[in-house]
């Protein structure tokens, strides 16, 4: 198994400073030295609550933000060291599908132009070829050919998300970042899109970075899962094993808080108390210690590192 993409010690810090006379108000470590790998043809799921850094991670991978530290390696080469053609190739190989199907498509462009935009921008292609490719993709995502000449407002949410997927595929990328791709859709439509994404993965050998707050959807889609809390990875490992027997106290609490899919599965685990602290002033030591039922004095002082535990990575002093 080879990793198509690998992040090593990746960080993104934001200066909490605004305007001309703002002055600095400290640093937000939105993403703090995280490492992960996306295997070829696999899905890496990222879960965590708001403020955990999962969206920033997606932006870093997409090149929408530049990392403050660490590196991203694509096909074994560091992005930093890539020359211009190399970067262009990277950009073509990594595409995205976002949450809101209504905001993802420019309302003033026809579907054909929307789907073709990445192609036209990046490659010299003649018009008939572009058209051919657009129709091919529409067929691939299950939309009729005549959709090409319509405008976005003529489609429902699920159909728009199919269009967004077609656009992401037009450059035949290797990695697609899926940032909450079904959260905005109705329950009965979600399954259509998840099924489509899975079948595209097997047919085209795509790798996904899948970000969602719906744990069951992530578990369903992913091969590996990364759990984040306040910018750090607290646990990562094989998806099913992690979902069924989480180890880190936060992962445990998170999965315990997930809603059951059947009334017989109601859990009586105690609910995690407290709220996620402000990322502007995260707790010392292990960020999770103020809410952790197992916290010791050491947790408040020393941040645990990720360590291998039973084929998984866990960042917790309990597992040393």
């Amino acid at each position: 198994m080879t990793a198509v993409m690998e992040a090593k010690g990746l960080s993104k810090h934001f200066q909490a400073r605004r305007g001309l006379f703002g002055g600095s108000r400290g640093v937000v470590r939105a993403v703090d030295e995280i490492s992960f790998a996306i295997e070829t043809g696999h899905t890496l799921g990222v879960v965590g609550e708001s403020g955990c850094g999962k969206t920033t991670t997606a932006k870093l991978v997409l090149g929408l933000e530049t990392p403050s530290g660490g590196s991203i390696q694509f096909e074994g080469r560091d992005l930093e060291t890539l020359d211009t053609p190399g970067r262009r190739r990277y950009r073509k190989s990594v595409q995205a599908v976002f949450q809101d199907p209504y905001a993802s498509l420019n309302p003033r462009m026809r579907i054909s132009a929307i789907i073709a935009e990445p192609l036209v921008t990046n490659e010299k292609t003649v018009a008939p070829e572009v058209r051919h490719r657009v129709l091919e993709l529409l067929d691939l995502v299950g939309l009729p050919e005549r959709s090409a000449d319509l405008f976005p407002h003529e489609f429902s949410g699920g159909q728009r998300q199919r269009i967004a997927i077609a656009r992401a595929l037009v450059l035949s990328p290797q990695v697609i970042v899926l940032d909450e791709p079904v959260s905005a859709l109705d329950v009965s439509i979600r399954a259509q899109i998840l099924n489509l994404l899975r079948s595209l993965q097997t047919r085209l050998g795509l790798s996904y970075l899948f970000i969602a707050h719906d744990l069951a959807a992530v578990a369903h889609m992913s091969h590996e899962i990364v759990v984040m809390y306040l910018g750090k990875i607290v646990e990562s490992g094989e998806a099913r094993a992690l979902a069924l027997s989480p180890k880190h106290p936060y992962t445990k609490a998170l999965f315990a808080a997930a809603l059951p899919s059947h009334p017989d599965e109601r859990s009586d685990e105690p609910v995690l108390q407290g709220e996620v602290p402000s990322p502007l002033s995260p707790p010392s030591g292990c960020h999770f210690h103020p809410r952790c039922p197992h916290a010791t004095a050491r947790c408040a002082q020393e941040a645990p590192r990720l360590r291998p535990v039973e084929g998984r990575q866990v960042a917790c002093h309990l597992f040393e």
Partner: protein
Amino acid sequence: MTVTTTPLAAAAASPAARTLKLWRLEGFPLIPVLILLLIAFVAVFADFLAPYDPQIGSLARRFRPPAWEAGGSMAHLLGTDHVGRDVLSRLIFGARVSMVVGLTAVLVAGGIGTLLGILSGYLGGWVDQVIMRVTDAWLALPALTFAIFLAAIVGPSELNIIVILGGVYWTRYARVVRGEVLSLKQREFVRLAVVAGCSKWLIMRRHILPNVLNSAIVLATLMLGVVIVTEASLSFLGVGVPPPKPAWGLMMADGKKGLMVGYWWLTVFPGICIMLMVLSANLLGDWLRVKLDPQLRQL
């Protein structure tokens, strides 16, 4: 695997058809649009429509009342002014002045404002800071006061008025457009365009500009009314279109002296013209705002 979808027809046809229907039915401001078209028509064909030269009168025929008043005649349907010029002819040529000044000033203000608003909103950083600080400073001056100040410096002429009004009003445009751009910038299709490798300029042209156009049009229509009132006010105060050119505001300023002795037609008729034009522009703008741009409804 099979991916099936509903026949598009059901989903596709109905919203489009509904939009068309709404467009036709819901409160289209027919009368205001007709009034604006009429004023535009009069402005274009003023030379053929006006019965007299608007700038030449004879003192022998001063202060003739409108035709239906005692002492009025059909020769001067709406009467004559203090130097015996035909009021109707002056109103007709005044329409040209208002239209030309109004439309070009809005175009100038809209052009500068939209451009700077997009640059400021999309590029952010120091470009945004510079543009917005200047905008803030300029907005602190009430538009009319600012316009008077500029007119006092550069002196009155039709061209100067256009430049002045454009210079005064672009800031309002820039503010609104910038706000719009900031929210568009957060929209996912703009982020996706970055992912697709589009350059900043391409994104501004293809993704930002077309999407702020609606707001810009609505604003332009509403601005037309404001600009015309300002132009008339400047003319009324004597720093607008220089006499003897027939501008509606100027006509009212001239007529003001006659008001106390009962020469009401000199102020009332140009006033009605200004009112009709401004009201029509505002009604059209209000309607467009609701139709084209739900986000501006709160404005």
